[in-house]
């Protein structure tokens, strides 16, 4: 199982799902219409490291985080 966390202003509980690549997560989340507008603007981290590739492999216990647009300071 992989854990998907939604950070900052995305008001959504953590999801657990079976996935072997980040593409599996993307496919799963694409069915959630409520998430559509967020997904287009979110960066993604796996185990707190930013990733840029949908082929990123995932294993049991991995954490995927969605980071919406930021504004510190």
């Amino acid at each position, binding site marked *: 199982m992989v854990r998907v966390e939604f*950070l*900052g*202003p995305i008001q959504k509980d953590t999801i657990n799902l079976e996935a072997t690549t*980040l*593409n599996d*997560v*993307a*496919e799963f*989340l*694409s069915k959630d219409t409520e998430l559509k507008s967020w*997904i*287009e*603007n*979110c*960066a*993604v*981290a796996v185990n*707190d*490291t*930013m*990733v*840029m*590739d*949908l082929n990123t492999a995932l294993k049991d216990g991995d954490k995927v*985080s*969605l*980071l*919406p*647009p*930021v*504004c*510190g*300071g």
Partner: protein
Amino acid sequence: MLELFEGPVPVEKTLARWYKEEDKSNYGAFIPFIGTIRDEDGIDGLSFDIYEPILNSWYEAWQKKAAEVGAILKMAHSKGDVPLHKSSYIAAVFSPKRRVALEMIDEFVEDFKASAPIWKYDLRDGKRIYAKDRSTAIKGSGLLSKVKDK
């Protein structure tokens, strides 16, 4: 060391402490950037969410970059609510020479704005409203929308 404060950053104390921490380190230039909540658009203040694990790794990467030119960085940021005219943010560079410090404070603050995992909310009538229009999508955003059907 990145410092997080519940509520406003205590500016005078933090600047004095940082200055003292490095007062024998032989840095010729010290440039802090202090960010303060402006009274604008009728807000009552701002509020911040921070995702610490990624903020820490972003910050450590910057410390390494600074070390390559003999500089060090310090940073303090607020979590939660900060009222008008209080400060939510200090970023600082110490370096042997002024050019490095002047260039690095600019790059550091701009990259912070574009990349640090911090989310800002306007406080209005007791509500916390995501400052979407003033937020910046992190580099590489939209990755999950490029899903490939199998």
